């Protein structure tokens, strides 16, 4: 009798034990959704495809395999060469991007809200937004030298027009009822601007900034290819001279990863701090 009861107790204990651990496991697995598995499968599949194509059809110096790129990457990480290139590119991008956004968002809000200001500056906006930043590289280098200032200015230029136009579109999209409601609730034009126009436009500003971030990456690479002695653009272009295709691929992979990470981080900030403004995902 006694032993049976003990056994029962033991059984009961194991049951409760596994029952307690099961929800924890289930919780972990519930976070891993089907799409996550697809993400991983897609990345692994792409790398395998890369490997197969590179090793079957190409000589290594024309199309290096992922393993070769990985080995070169390790070397460059060990010599800190890669950190240097990534650091300098990222620094240029962020400085230019932040200065550009800081200029463009207020300018876009004011141009969007005040018709005379818009009429004054709109011709320039419409003209210069079609002139790619890289077209300015030579004059800018002539005026500001070959140093950091030129590269940052080029990125400021790229960022400004994208954020500016998005902000103006945002102001134009404010429901007239919101402005009317604010007016009959007693808001002066200045307060309407600060308490209605600004928050209502924020999602558009943030979207413009996300787009501008992508263009900043493109611009920094072009600028570094032409006028720099460090950075990912320099790495890619300089490796061309030595036929170091593996290093070019390192540059490409780093650009993609840095872009992805900064965009994810930016999106996290939007969701975390501005979700009620209705940001566009």
């Amino acid at each position, binding site marked *: 009798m006694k032993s049976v009861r003990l056994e029962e107790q033991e059984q009961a204990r194991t049951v409760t034990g596994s029952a307690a651990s099961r929800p924890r496991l289930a919780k972990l697995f519930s976070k891993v959704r089907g799409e996550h598995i697809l993400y991983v499968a897609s990345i692994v599949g792409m790398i395998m495809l890369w490997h197969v194509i590179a090793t079957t059809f190409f000589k290594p110096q024309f199309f290096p395999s992922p393993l070769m790129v990985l080995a070169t990457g390790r070397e460059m990480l060990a010599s800190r060469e890669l950190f240097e290139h990534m650091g300098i590119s990222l620094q240029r991008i962020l400085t230019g991007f932040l200065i550009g956004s800081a200029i463009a968002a207020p300018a876009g809000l004011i141009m969007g809200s005040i018709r005379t200001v818009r009429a004054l500056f709109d011709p320039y906006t419409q003209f210069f937004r079609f002139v790619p930043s890289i077209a300015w590289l030579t004059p800018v280098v002539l005026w500001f030298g070959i140093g950091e200032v030129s590269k940052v200015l080029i990125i400021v230029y790229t960022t400004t027009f994208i954020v500016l136009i998005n902000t103006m579109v945002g102001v134009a999209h404010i*429901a007239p*009822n*919101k402005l*009317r*409601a*604010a*007016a*009959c*609730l*007693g*808001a*002066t034009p200045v*307060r309407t601007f600060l*308490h*209605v126009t600004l*928050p*209502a436009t*924020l999602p558009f500003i943030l979207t413009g900034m996300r787009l501008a971030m992508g263009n900043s990456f493109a611009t920094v690479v072009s600028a570094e290819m032409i006028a720099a002695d460090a950075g990912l653009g320099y790495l890619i272009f300089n490796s061309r001279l030595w036929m170091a295709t593996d290093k070019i691929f390192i540059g490409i992979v780093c650009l993609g990863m840095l872009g992805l990470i900064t965009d994810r981080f930016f999106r996290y900030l939007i969701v975390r701090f501005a979700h*009620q*403004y*209705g940001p566009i995902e």
Partner: protein
Amino acid sequence: MAAEFLMARDVSFQYVPQRGMPAPPVLAHFTLALTEGEFFCLLGPSGCGKTTVLNLMAGFLQPTTGRLTLADRPIHGPGVDRAVVFQSDDALFPWLRTIDNVAFGLRMRGVPYERRYAIAREYLHLVHLDGQEHKYPSELSGGMKQRVQIARVLANDPQILLMDEPFGALDAQTRTRLQDELVEIWRQTSKTILFITHDVAEAVLLADRIGVMTQGPGAQLSTIVTVDLPRPRRRGSPGFGEMWEQINTLIESEELGRP
């Protein structure tokens, strides 16, 4: 009865001609006088210019000719004495919580923090939104959003409420409830209300007087009908049906009157 409170005298309105094409006048020689404390419904065929009347009274538009006054003061632009409840909930501020939406007008007018939230709470209670203070508009139903709009304008203590088909976009059940609640709010606050609708039953249920507009262009007031049904009104009562019939005939003849 008090003297005329909100007054539109011989008002015409026409949009500015575009590319030399003169726009037909929306309103021509429109005259309307509201007495203080009354519930007035403006009823008319769709597209006749009801909303234009409201926009003129709110000060969003300026009349081409004629005069608009509130308590003998001319109306030049939007003001806190005339509060507007819009049909669309896009008039709410989605980045503000319910209570901050309601307190918005008080904040703009510099009412201190403690006081404005006390007032906002009071009016949220009046529109039966207790417990919803900290939700964002996107978390509220259509009916709740219109309640927020009503609370928001009442918190600002206006002299008159201008309501532009505020229940037009709601489902039938919610609309019925809000109609009853609006009558109750009107009774408690004794505000003057100008309510625009194209729903005859809604007008008969709510109004002291119903103004029927002519078909535009160049719309004006064709008839004013006093609704002398006792309150609270019941939608199924015989008097209600008769009144509905009478007004509906007026509207139909108005719609047939001009092609």
